[in-house]
């Protein structure tokens, strides 16, 4: 209570008269207890990225990252709608998490060593393996990025994209010409109107940009991926229970896909004889309780948003307009690298 008063006083000190708009308190420790007490999950989200988090006409958010927030909410409350989104710009996302403004950050954030070690944050899982790719016109007759010698390439200024591009072309002894623009919109328009031979950004972005082209079928995405961009949820360091919960949310969604537990059949699957499924769905053991939830946490989650494959297909895969291939994000036994540690 005194904190609340202190923050109100500060707001007043800033010259604010209608201070009632308010200040809230949240404990940095024991995130789960705090979330349960609030009655909703506060999720740091993207301010708009096709397939990963976009508002619809009513302003409701949907997307791949958004569904991860909903999955966590479903695991805790049994209700995927008990989540509030704080759209965060790239530069204030970590501050928002550090200051306790959001409980978890699920906002296509690349996991890197410096972010993991110096920011006071943890990245318990990687829910999407992304990487920088190229798009070219079909009529250019190019099948590999290695054939792009001498090409002009449209890219966005001042991003790691530009640096990766330089590394890749220098490493392969290829000549190229960068045509850089300030915004992603301008960059793609320039490519679409023929200003450059190729367009580069993260592979997930290539597919959504291609939809916007004046003739989407005239463009192909080349197979080379020239950088590693593992995207994953972030949490504050120092709350191992909460980090475990986020990690096992991701693992459980993968295991559900691996064993064919879907949104539609999860109620029947509870009666399954397969020991893996029994442990996942809480028919055997009490694994949910070890992360502060109840035994049937994964049932609630899959019922709320589906398994990993369903989330993928619905938002960015074949069931969506983006039609991104699973690629690296296929399960480990289907040619990808999404590999979940077992529940036991």
């Amino acid at each position, binding site marked *: 209570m005194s904190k609340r008063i202190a923050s109100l006083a500060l707001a007043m000190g800033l*010259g604010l008269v209608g201070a009632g708009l308010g200040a809230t308190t949240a404990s940095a420790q024991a995130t789960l207890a705090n979330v349960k007490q609030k009655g909703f999950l506060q999720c740091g989200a993207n301010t708009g990225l096709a397939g990963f988090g*976009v508002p619809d006409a009513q302003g409701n958010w949907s997307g791949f990252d958004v569904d991860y927030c909903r999955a966590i909410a479903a695991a805790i409350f049994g209700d995927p709608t008990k989540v509030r989104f704080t759209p*965060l710009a790239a530069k204030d996302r970590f501050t928002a998490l550090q200051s306790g403004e959001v409980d978890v950050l699920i906002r296509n954030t690349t996991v890197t060593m410096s972010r993991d070690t110096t920011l006071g944050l943890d990245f318990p899982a990687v829910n999407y393996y992304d990487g920088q790719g190229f798009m070219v016109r079909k009529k250019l007759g190019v099948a590999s990025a290695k054939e792009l010698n001498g090409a002009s390439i449209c890219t966005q200024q001042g991003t790691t994209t530009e640096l990766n591009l330089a590394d890749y072309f220098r490493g392969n002894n290829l000549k190229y010409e960068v045509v850089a623009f300030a915004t992603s919109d301008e960059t793609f328009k320039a490519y679409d109107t023929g200003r450059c031979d190729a367009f580069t950004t993260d592979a997930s972005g290539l597919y959504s940009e291609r939809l*916007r082209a004046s003739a989407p079928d005239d463009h192909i995405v080349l197979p080379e991926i020239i950088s590693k961009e593992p995207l994953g949820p972030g949490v504050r360091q120092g709350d191992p229970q909460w980090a475990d919960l986020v990690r096992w949310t991701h693992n459980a969604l993968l295991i559900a896909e691996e064993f064919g537990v879907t949104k539609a059949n999860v109620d029947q699957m509870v009666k399954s004889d397969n020991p893996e499924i029994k442990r996942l769905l809480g028919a055997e053991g009490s694994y949910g309780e070890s992360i502060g939830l109840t035994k049937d946490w994964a049932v609630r989650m899959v019922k709320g948003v589906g398994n990993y494959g369903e989330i993928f297909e619905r938002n960015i895969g074949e069931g969506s307009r983006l039609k991104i291939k699973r690629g690296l994000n296929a399960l480990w036994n289907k040619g990808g690298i999404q590999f979940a540690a077992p529940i036991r």
Partner: protein
Amino acid sequence: MAVQSLSGSSLAYVQARQSEPLPPPSLMRGPIAWIRQSLFSSVSNTILTLVVLYLLYLVVPPVLRFAIVDAVWTGADRAACREDMVGHPVGACWAFVVDRIGYFTYGAYPVPERWRVNVWFAMLALGVVWMLWLRAPRRDIGAAYFFVVFPVASFILLTGWGAVGLEPVSTAFWGGILVTLLVSVIGIVFSLPFGILLALGRRSKLPVVRLASVIFIEVIRGVPLITVLIMANTMLPLFLPAGVTVDRLLRPLVGVAIFSAAYMAEVVRGGLQAVPKGQYEGAMSLGLGYWRMMVLIVLPQALRIVIPGIVNTFIGLFKDTSLVYVIGVFDLMKTIESARIDPIWAAPTVSNTGYAFAALFYFVCCFGMSRYSLMVERKLAAGQKR
């Protein structure tokens, strides 16, 4: 005798009736003459006219073609706005704006509660008209309404209050035109009184007051608005005790209010300096104290002088509010930014259409403000006309 013969009708060479007036010479009056005089009066003028006409020819037809002729007005998704799917060139995709107009207006404000925002818009319009219409009845009540009743009512209406049966709505859901207007109105409403106080403070003879005003004005004016916003949004949480947060919409509101107050202070100070010293001395010789002298004699003259400056600051502030999008607040620009990337509306002209809509909105608002200020200037300057 001679006089009589002149006024009489006996002289045959004096016309008895007035003759029909001739039409004015066509080269001196009328449209042709106007064109000759204004557009082709000299060689250089003729060249300039032709150049401007050519530029208009370059600009106007494509704009009309984009905005009206080739525009798509109805449709449910990207298929309506794609040249390869509809089979003719596509200009502006207004169908996208029509589809998302609710989002652009209210942001994510819950649909069943959006009537509250409509009521707020109506209350805002009432207050603005009451304040701005110079011959409106009881403008004193209007001022009380706008500066006391309206802020309190807006707060209750928009954030909700369980006691009167209004569902609480977190500011995280506010967006679009609602936020743009809210940030501008707060900036405008706070900046004028605070700006006047700061300007008086800066000219005060009390050293502490003067120093404090100078420091505040110079520090805030010395940094860009975007810095103030990022400080308020990103740095402030780091200074607060762990776990304490200030509402995300409140931060830019405070930032914009203090920023515009500092600018307003300098505009008002210009007006104060333009009032002749004799006015101050006259007021003092009447035995008026400081505040009466300011309120009754000096400020009315000073503010009239700086109306163009004040409106200029308001217009600048109104457009500057779009900067809040860099800190993740969903004003009109940001809602357009996040809607245009939706794959449902992925078509080449959708982004341009969104930006055109924003430009239209800002232009209409700013042009209205500018015309109004011209009108007020003419009215208030009536006594100065010779």
